């Protein structure tokens, strides 16, 4: 699904990733943990195609060079980033945005675009599953949403777009337990043998709800340790300082 080989990244001459290697196979859930400033968000930005980084190394997504793809092409091919700070976009209706996005992706896949009624049926069901308030569907995109609402909106988008590889960038930060549970349920309900996840987080908390197959520790732009879900517990007990 995703193979990262010796990925280095610098921004304004500051090096942030220093040779990162990661291999995610279909159906796997990987958790990437690390302290602030370890390069977690940089990784998710680079994977989704944000400009402004100088990179070297290779990233293959479904055996194709990811760097050859535009931002939206990556989305068309099933790569999804749940943003740490989802943007507020005034004047753009949430529903309308989701429909535009879904149809752009369906079109790229050669599927039939959905009309308003078909779309509404899907979105209403998904919103209900995620306990996402229906009235928020008709609000402007993320404008005036609480932190939790924004994150839930990201998960709603994810469940509508049905990506193959989902990157969740600190989706758990700022969530209360209820919201955390809803978000995790959303992720878990998507899990199957073809879909993969990269969960980026600072805390072990989210991993109580989403059991990862692998846990990696990111420090100074490099994965310094990998293991199974026990590693997350170890981290929780020892802290990042205790891992070598």
């Amino acid at each position, binding site marked *: 699904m995703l193979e990262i080989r010796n990925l280095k990244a610098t921004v304004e001459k500051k090096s942030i990733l220093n040779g990162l290697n990661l291999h995610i196979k279909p159906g796997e859930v990987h958790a990437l943990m690390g302290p602030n400033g370890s390069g977690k968000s940089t990784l998710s930005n680079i994977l*989704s*195609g944000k*400009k402004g980084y100088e990179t070297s190394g290779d990233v293959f997504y479904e055996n194709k060079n990811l760097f050859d793809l535009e931002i*939206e092409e990556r989305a068309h091919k099933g790569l999804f980033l749940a943003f740490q700070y989802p943007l507020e*976009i005034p004047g*753009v209706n949430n529903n309308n945005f989701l429909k*535009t996005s879904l149809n752009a992706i369906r079109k790229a896949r050669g599927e039939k675009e959905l009309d308003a009624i078909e779309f509404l049926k899907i979105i209403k069901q998904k919103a209900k599953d995620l306990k996402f308030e229906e009235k928020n569907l008709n609000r*402007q995109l993320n404008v005036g949403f609480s932190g939790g609402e924004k994150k839930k909106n990201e998960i709603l988008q994810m469940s509508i777009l049905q990506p193959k590889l989902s990157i969740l960038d600190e989706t758990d930060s700022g969530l209360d337990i209820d919201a955390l549970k809803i978000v995790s349920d959303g992720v878990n309900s998507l899990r199957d043998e073809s879909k993969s996840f990269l969960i980026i987080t600072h805390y072990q908390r989210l991993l109580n709800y989403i059991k990862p197959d692998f846990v990696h520790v990111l420090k100074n732009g490099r994965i310094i340790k990998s293991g199974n879900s026990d590693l997350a517990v170890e981290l929780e007990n020892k802290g990042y300082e205790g891992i070598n």
Partner: protein
Amino acid sequence: MSNIKKIFIDKKISKSELENKNNYFEIFKKKGFPNKKLEDWKFLDLNYEINNQIPNLNFVIKKSKINKNQILENIPINIKEFNYVLNINGFVEEINFSHEDKSFINIETNPDKKNKIISNALENLNLAFNLDYLCINIKQDYKVKKPLLILNVIIENIKSSNINKKFDIFLEKNAEISVLNLVQNNSKNNFFNLHQRFILNQSSILKNYFVDINKNQNLNYIKTDIEIEKNSISENVVISKNSDYCKNEIVCNLLDQFSSAFINGIIDLDNSQKHEIRTRINHLAENTKSYQLIKCVLNNQSKAVYQGKIYVDSKAQKTDGYQSSKAILLNENTEFNGKPELEIYADDVKCSHGSSSGNLDENKIFYLMTRGLNKNEAKKLLIDGYLMEVIDKITDERIKAIIKEIIKI
């Protein structure tokens, strides 16, 4: 410039009116078209534009033979569903209020009215040459059921001409009307000079909108004066998009308590177009409210201007005035000029303005692209969303639908 008496020789107008018209024209001739030396015109110089684009401007319009049905067919609106006034080349061809109880609507053409002396050159020009000046009076408590479309059509063979239109609408106590001014200029190099006046008596409601139907190479000047009495509301939305040059000037006088004025506008330009919205809101009584939101999108060498002034008289305590102007500059060689002005002489007021200009937010484009849109789709979605905020201020849903259709948003 020829003698005005000759121009109006075949018209049935009284001697005294002819004399008036002559006087107005003399004042105009003395002043000429406004140029950038005047503070109000410093950003867009009309005199320059006229000299440049229409060096031989013709003030005389002859009534020509037209095919009304064919003209109506070319308008992308089923106007029979509405009330309408059809003006062709400045002449009133048809007035249709078939949806209304006519006993509540009084219409006069060319009323014998004394207009007070005014200094604005273009108003003098208008008073000298306007054709078929209409006064519409809506009687007490009558709420006009269907919107009134005022269709100003200029046909292909009118060129390098100045067309002056003037109309007044009086709303008696508790009356209501929605008006949509539409311009379909099928020709080019004309200067269309429209002056409209609305008098809102107690507790009346005016909804007033403006849009050009088609892309065209003409110059427009639209002057709107609104007098707003106690408890009355005036809602205005200007869509400034299709002509080469367009200046909308709106003056609202909030004369008595609890009156309010809303002015919202879009300036959406491309290819060297130059447009301006200039507003002046005079808060002259206590507890009055005004709200303004102007949004501009500028592409390829276009230029937009917003000059907005909120004046608060010392009597106008508890005024609530808000003004916001925003511009997106999509590429190099575009220009936005703003002059959001406050002049305040009362201390217990809430007045503020905000203005911002710049490019589209790259982070938002990125966000949309990660959701599968290409760059152009992302930009379009953002711009439409940005402009939608203004469109949503149109509270008359029927007119909103027409405007959305015309500007394809």
